[in-house]
């Protein structure tokens, strides 16, 4: 009898294990495999009763997928801020009913989590400069400590800069620069850095390849690419500017999640100390959003909460996300499509400044060089932003007009600088 009881107990136990093992949680993400692999393994170990099923889609594609009926996703976990904002506004998420203690909603002046609590930051990444110390030394160049360092003509040809319309992390990079320096000065810095740079698009080598191999001395990038490469042995370093810009990733549970308890467990795990420490893995190297875990960070690991206490600025995340396409289009007009002219122009201006720093024509040359098709007020116009999101005829017309005017302005700036260079004095 006792043996029978034992057998029944064992069978019930096995049955319950079997039943639990079949419960899954479907998570949509665009994280690279390295991130998925580490979280998948750790979550499975912590919660063997749940099967984690990953669906992978890039941000835009994810939105199309999620707008289909029966998309059957429980959790959205990804670095795609605008998607979270849009989906939240559409009422796609449940209010997160998991323990959020110890998770600040801001880093300095950066809002990283939804103030209404429908989605929260899971990690963040900072923008800065990857550099090859040996190559910098060979070229006699200083270690860059701020974006402005890279505007020096000495860096000409030794920088790689990502094109915002082509590389996923680059729109925020450009916009944090525009917000930290201000609209006009920000564009001026961007243009001068880009004039010194090779422009990277989606088909290029990783910036960490070019800088790690010493082919290029400095690369503007998001930190984890470089810091993970450093952790895995690449001979490069990373420098954050004084005012760091961040790109947070988020997690949310869908209102209609079919596997709600498993979804809660996954979200809680990602936000837990254990989950946050996974971000220190050499293949990931993202910045945890739970400040407590920095107490055990690897040597030299950047702590954004500590950094924000030293220098910070208010970044308007909503504005930055809304104008992403317009800023990308402006970058292409001012920089990508006129790159050769931009390089010639800034080289001439810098030479002219060296030759005759007091020449009154320099002010005019710089005015033409810094000409912008849109003001900071215009770029925040919602109708214009929608037009560029759809990339409709209005956007195409605007781009054509910008191109014509920019070409003229660059010619005028270059001519003025050359006049100074050719003048006797």
């Amino acid at each position, binding site marked *: 009898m006792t043996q029978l009881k034992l057998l029944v107990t064992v069978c019930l136990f096995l049955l319950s294990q*079997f039943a639990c*093992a*079949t419960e899954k949680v479907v998570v949509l993400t*665009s994280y*690279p*495999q*390295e991130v*998925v*692999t580490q979280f*998948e*393994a750790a979550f*499975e*170990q912590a919660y*063997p009763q749940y*099967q984690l*099923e*990953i*669906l*992978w*889609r*890039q941000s*835009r*594609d994810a939105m*199309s*997928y999620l707008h289909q009926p*029966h998309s*059957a996703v429980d959790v959205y976990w990804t670095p795609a801020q605008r998607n979270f904002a849009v989906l939240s506004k559409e009422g796609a998420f449940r209010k997160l009913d998991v323990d959020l203690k110890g998770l600040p909603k801001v880093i300095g002046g950066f809002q990283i989590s939804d103030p209404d609590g429908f989605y929260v930051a899971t990690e963040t990444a900072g923008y800065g400069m990857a550099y090859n110390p040996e190559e910098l030394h060979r070229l006699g160049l200083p270690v860059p400590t701020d974006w402005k360092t890279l505007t020096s003509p000495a860096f000409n040809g030794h920088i790689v800069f990502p094109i915002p319309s082509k590389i996923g992390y680059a729109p925020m990079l450009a916009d944090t620069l525009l917000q930290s320096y201000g609209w006009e000065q920000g564009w001026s810095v961007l243009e001068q850095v880009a004039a010194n740079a090779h422009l990277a698009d989606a*088909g*290029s*080598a*990783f910036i960490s*390849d070019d800088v790690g191999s010493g082919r290029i001395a400095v690369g503007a990038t998001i930190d984890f690419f470089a810091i993970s*490469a450093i952790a*895995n*042995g*690449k001979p490069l370093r990373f420098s954050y500017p004084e005012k760091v810009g961040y790109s947070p990733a988020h997690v949310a549970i869908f209102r209609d999640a079919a596997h709600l308890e498993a979804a809660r467990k996954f979200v809680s795990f990602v936000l837990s100390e254990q989950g946050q420490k996974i971000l220190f893995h*050499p*293949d990931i190297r993202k910045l945890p959003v739970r400040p407590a875990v920095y107490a055990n960070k690897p040597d030299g690991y950047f702590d954004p909460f500590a950094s924000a206490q030293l220098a910070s600025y208010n970044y308007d995340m909503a504005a930055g996300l809304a104008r992403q396409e317009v800023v990308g289009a402006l970058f292409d007009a001012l920089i990508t499509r006129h790159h050769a002219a931009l390089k010639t122009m800034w080289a001439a201006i810098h030479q002219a400044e060296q030759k005759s720093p007091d020449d009154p024509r320099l002010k005019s040359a710089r005015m033409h060089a810094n000409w912008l098709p849109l003001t900071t007020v215009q770029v925040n116009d919602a109708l214009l932003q929608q037009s560029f999101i759809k990339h409709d005829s209005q956007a195409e017309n605007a781009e054509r007009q910008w191109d014509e005017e920019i070409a003229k302005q660059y010619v005028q700036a270059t001519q003025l600088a050359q006049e100074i260079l050719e003048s006797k004095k």
Partner: protein
Amino acid sequence: MMIGRACCLSLALTLSLPVIAVEPSVTTDLTSREAYEQPVSALSEADRPKFFKGRNLVRQSWVIPPSENREIAGLGPLYNRISCIACHAGNGRGFAPATPQESMHSMLVRLSIPGTDQHGGPNPHPGYGGQLNEFGVPGVPGEGKAEVSYTEFAIKLNGDEQVMLRKPSLTFVDLAYGDFPADLLTSPRIAPPIFGLGLLQAVAEADIVALENAAKPKGIQGKVNRVWDEAQQKTVVGRFGWKANMPNLRQQIAGAFVGDMGITSALFPLENCTSVQTACKLSLSAGTPELSNEQLDASEFYHFALAAPAQRNPENAEVKHGAQLFTQAQCAACHVPDLRTSVFPGYPALSNKTIHPYTDLLLHDMGKPLADNRPDYLATGQEWRTPPLWGIGLAQKVEPRAGFLHDGRARTLLEAILWHDGEAKNSAQLVKDMSAMDRRDLVEFLESL
């Protein structure tokens, strides 16, 4: 002529120390976790974009159709993992689950029933096909799950040393397309490393045949597998895969795309559904095929151009001593240290190089303990291809849980050696009989590769 050269080469190698000359153009000195991801130094500026494109494809997480990103869509209907590097992390080898509860993160199970297909290869199960795909796209049930459990036992070695070995066994759960038949043949396989494969393809077929025919120490045979080449539509020498059941890299890559991820290509244009998998057959494809020829070219080129790690510390006394022991124990009879590539039009930079892969690319009977009892072309259920040893010392640096042998049962190199049986029984016994210090030097040598 070719036979004579290979004979001399093989004989020389079994009688003398391995030659550890550095070939800077096809090896990398990098020893970091990215050691398996380096291009050969001969990679030209013109070839860099293709290399990086291929790398992006290997790193790409694939998308279930329909998708706006047509070029990366095609995952499923049935699949094991969503990217190549999910199994080949850092381009390295995979590992076996430690417990039945753990999923097969970088491992799969081949399936077949007795008999052969029309080309002499394994006969796929009519309901499940040639491998168990754990996942299905929405609306398509995954095929089921394989769970691994182990029986541990101790092996006593000279010098009062004892090593625990674990013998795996498989259980299948959640089978969605009916029970398995009693005579089902199964073979669990961890993902092998993917660097240096271009160099192995650049070894001439005739040289592999010559190795088969070369004189070897008593008890050691070595056999060429002959397998179906889809592109050429004929039987050729097999050289890739745990049983040398793949003729070339292109077929290996296209086979993995369709088998592991359900992504079709010109070489394998049909989705991986069997006749009874109705929902699978009705599922959307992302294109015909899903992987373009250009993508397959780039992926193949990336694999061609991946360098093999150079040996570290060859002058270290323990490593040198270990190398001597490696030869004395006749390990080098199968793990042939030196091969020579031939003229290789696929990527001329790999032509005419002396390489140090520590393989003969031949099948050897490894005895009952390692048998999967699942024939694969000419490979019997006890035969396995000699796996290359180059770079093996970095395996657990690249992937800390990397396992050894076809099913990852060996957690250390010494465990892997102790599993050797069949043609390698004498070698394994010699290692068991060595002093503990000699065994450490032998492993030290392997770690240097």
